[in-house]
């Protein structure tokens, strides 16, 4: 790899020589100190939405009651992302340590990892690591247990409130918000739910301190990020890179020389065309991503790409709210009708307005984010939609 893109090994870096050393050290600190460190580090959630992790923990910490939960969202379902799988394969201990820190801070005794149904093959190795954690927790007298719960393959169950429903044995459908998970999450108790990578980041902040951590990234996007690079690239794979780089740099590094567009953030993310590579920052100030980077070269039909995403949403919508359930069907059938010539080109405008309605009226992030890929692909590749 060239020096164009800075590689980092914060997340995948080796374990400290002594098992759970950072955890042991951190548990001796005060909750306020830990929260202050995370706040200073500027860490934002790595699932894609980018909510400041410190605030989420603080809100939950401040909730009354002693029944609270820590949940690690390992339902990695966004098309084009496979980085949590790698984290859970290579450094699961860091994830569990991050969860235990969270448990201490918010006052939870129970943590769960909600593991994507398709990742069942990870279970044996995770269980070995979990048993080691449990033994360590017993020795160190840490009152925080961790258990793995399996998902069953629904994309929507990666949405936090649908995930709670699923864990409670119900149909995975998003809840109305408010109340937010910090107030009423799993079993209607205050809950911190974070992405796998977020927990590792917290652990690393606790290990190296916020000052060191902040050296990575930009003002709005601190730290490193694990990217899942796929598509038309000679070097597809998992890369831990600094956040906040221009997309151009990324394409120079990973593209095949003929890159037409990059879908940043998976099917629910944004499609950036070549002409905008230069001015697009990968990060919360530009296009945020949960890790998925899909590269398309000129041989790809963006109509097919969009059609594929829409089919995905059409099936993966839970179906409870109107804009998402029916909207996804209308968008998919709508672009088909325009392509066939059954609907005039102006119908695309109608569909753009519909996607905007979905964005502002859908019940959860799924329906709200369909417009991201829809409008960015239709706007930037309109001729491909028509001809």
């Amino acid at each position: 790899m060239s020096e164009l893109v800075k590689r980092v090994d914060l997340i995948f870096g080796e374990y400290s020589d002594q098992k759970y050393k950072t955890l042991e050290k951190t548990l001796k600190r005060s909750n306020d100190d830990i929260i202050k460190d995370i706040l200073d580090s500027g860490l934002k959630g790595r699932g894609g939405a980018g909510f400041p992790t410190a605030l989420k923990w603080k809100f939950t910490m401040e909730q009354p009651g002693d029944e609270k939960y820590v949940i690690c969202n390992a339902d990695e379902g966004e098309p084009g992302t496979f980085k949590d799988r790698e984290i859970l394969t290579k450094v699961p201990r860091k994830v569990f340590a991050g969860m235990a820190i969270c448990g201490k801070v918010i006052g939870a005794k129970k943590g769960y990892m909600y593991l994507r149904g398709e990742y069942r093959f990870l279970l044996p190795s995770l269980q070995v690591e979990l048993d080691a954690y449990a033994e360590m927790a017993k020795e160190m007298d840490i009152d925080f247990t961790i258990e793995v719960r399996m998902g069953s393959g629904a994309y929507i169950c990666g949405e936090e409130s649908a995930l709670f429903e699923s864990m409670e044995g119900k149909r995975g459908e998003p809840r109305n918000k408010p109340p937010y998970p910090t107030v009423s999450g799993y079993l209607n108790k205050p809950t911190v739910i974070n992405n796998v990578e977020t927990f590792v980041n917290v652990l690393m902040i606790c290990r190296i301190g916020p000052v060191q951590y902040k050296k990575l990234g930009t003002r709005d996007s601190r730290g490193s990020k694990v990217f899942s690079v796929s598509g038309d690239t000679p070097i597809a794979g998992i890369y831990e890179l600094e956040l906040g780089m221009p997309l151009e740099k990324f394409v120079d590094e990973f593209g095949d020389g003929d890159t037409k567009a990059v879908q940043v953030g998976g099917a629910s993310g944004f499609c950036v065309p070549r002409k905008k590579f230069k001015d697009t920052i990968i990060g919360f100030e530009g296009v945020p991503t949960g890790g998925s980077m899909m590269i398309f070269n000129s041989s790809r039909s963006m109509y097919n790409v969009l059609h594929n995403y829409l089919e995905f949403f059409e099936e993966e919508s839970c179906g409870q709210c109107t804009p998402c359930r029916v909207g996804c069907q209308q968008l998919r059938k709508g672009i088909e009708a325009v392509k066939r010539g059954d609907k005039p080109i102006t119908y695309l405008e109608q569909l753009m307005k519909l996607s905007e309605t979905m964005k502002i009226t859908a019940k959860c992030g799924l329906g709200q984010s369909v417009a991201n890929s829809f409008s960015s692909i239709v706007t930037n590749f309109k001729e491909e939609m028509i001809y």
Partner: protein
Amino acid sequence: MTNQINLKIDGIDLTVDEGTTILSAARKANIQVPTLCYHEDLCVAGNCRVCVVEQKGTKNLVPSCAMPVSEGMDILTNTGKVRLARKHIVELLLSEHNADCTKCYKNGNCELQQLASEMLTGEPMFLDLVPDKKYTIDMFNTAIVKDDSRCIRCQRCVRTCEELQSVSALDVAYRGHTMKISTFFEHPLFEVVCTNCGQCVNRCPTGALIEKNYIDKVWDAIYDPNKHVVVQTAPAVRIALGEALGMPPGKIVTGKMVAALKRLGFDSVLDTDFTADLTIIEEGHELLSRLKRVLVDKDTTVALPMATSCSPGWIKFIEHTFPEMLPNLSTCKSPQQMFGALAKTYYAQKRGLDPKNIVSISIMPCTAKKFEANRQEMRSSGYTDVDYVLTTRELGIMIRQAGLDFESLPEEHTDSFMGASTGAAVIFGTTGGVMEAALRTAYEIVTGREVPFEGLNITPVRGTEGEVREASILIKKTLPEWSFLEGVELKCAVANGLAYAKKVMQDVKSGKANYHFIEIMACPGGCLGGGGQPIPTNLEIRTKRKEAIYSEDMGMPIRKSHENPEIAEIYQEFLGKPLGHKSHELLHTHYTPRKRY
């Protein structure tokens, strides 16, 4: 005191309790926000998104039904953004919906149709998705028809079935574009735990869940010169029928209803009230006999508490859910079925008619009665005891079809015999009514005196929604033959809505509750809130119906079942004595355990 929250809706300053939703705050200020999935009786779902409003400073629109107010909120309910979003949502619903309104049973009483007409949807904005959908219509059931092509997936039915009835026969299946409301393994309704209570029908905003209607069959019977068509009307019909014909809730329309039925061409207009009174006599004696066998004979095979058996939704529920407790059910048929059995025996004899030429129709506030009438065991007259059951709604339609100006009809009286009524029978229509009527009679049988409550109003057993009512009555100074009941404190419980029925039965089963007599009605509020009553329904409407029932009771010259003159007559001429041989043959039944799925 709850905290007060100040907010602004459409420029109007409001102060409301903390926890109020934007929707209820808006309604308080007389600002109408359209809704579809929202229903006052149910928990908030927030899934149709029709009620979205704009909150200043927030990018996305917020669902007013689900969003609680917060201090300083500035809400706009009528902006361009809101209007377009709502129109889009209604258009989306219509694109998935079989909008062939003229062929729909709910035409004219459909919330989606109403909303579409307000929005002036006109030419469809989006593609018609219906042709590609494989919608199914479940019409195998005798009581309820489920037409998925009319469904807008608001899940009111799902919430009704789970929250109010704890049955959960209906639930969501599949997801995304194939998501639908379905049953266990998509079996037809008649094969699953559905009790046919019809509460879902009462709350379905469209024509996706409707009663199976038998209107044309009834017209055919009326027009057939060889048939003698008798009609019975349940107590709760007469206080709600007006609503189906444009009158406000809570109007007592007994006389007009009778006049209308006569004009529709029924040969004899009779009254379920008569057999309600008969039920009291039979059930009262059954209770006393069970008490005697337990207290005097020490018979351990007799099940107590005894539970009422008038409500067919409740019967099917206990058959599915507590099959081991079927011995607790009174063996008395419901008033409808007692009436049916007598119509083709006693009535036929007395009128000199061949029972095979009698068509027995009942007008009920209920959809489960349709199922009940079709039970195999309901043929003790040698014929189908009740041929067709119509809901209050169907009678309303027939009256409109006949072109009758209902409000201007004179007040007329039911025919005799089997047409006489008492106040005790009238209150069968509300929760607690059967209990009260039974106590009015049983107490008097045992003590020779009236129940010790002013004006015969046994208010402690008058149930309310959302609770199990418990009461006890001390029996003192009995007549000599009932001396074994001296000093016994008769413990009663009254429950309405199957969620509460379940609770009572669980308490009984676990031994936590120690009742003698339980009245259970499947529907919230009792029959007045039945699944066959006019739509819409809510607590306010049901309360008005309830007031009407009690005022009807108070206005009756006779208010005790055993004083109904026709009751004395039928025992003398036909039945012999309560729980006698003929009674057992015609008026009592048995139950069938059913599977719990």
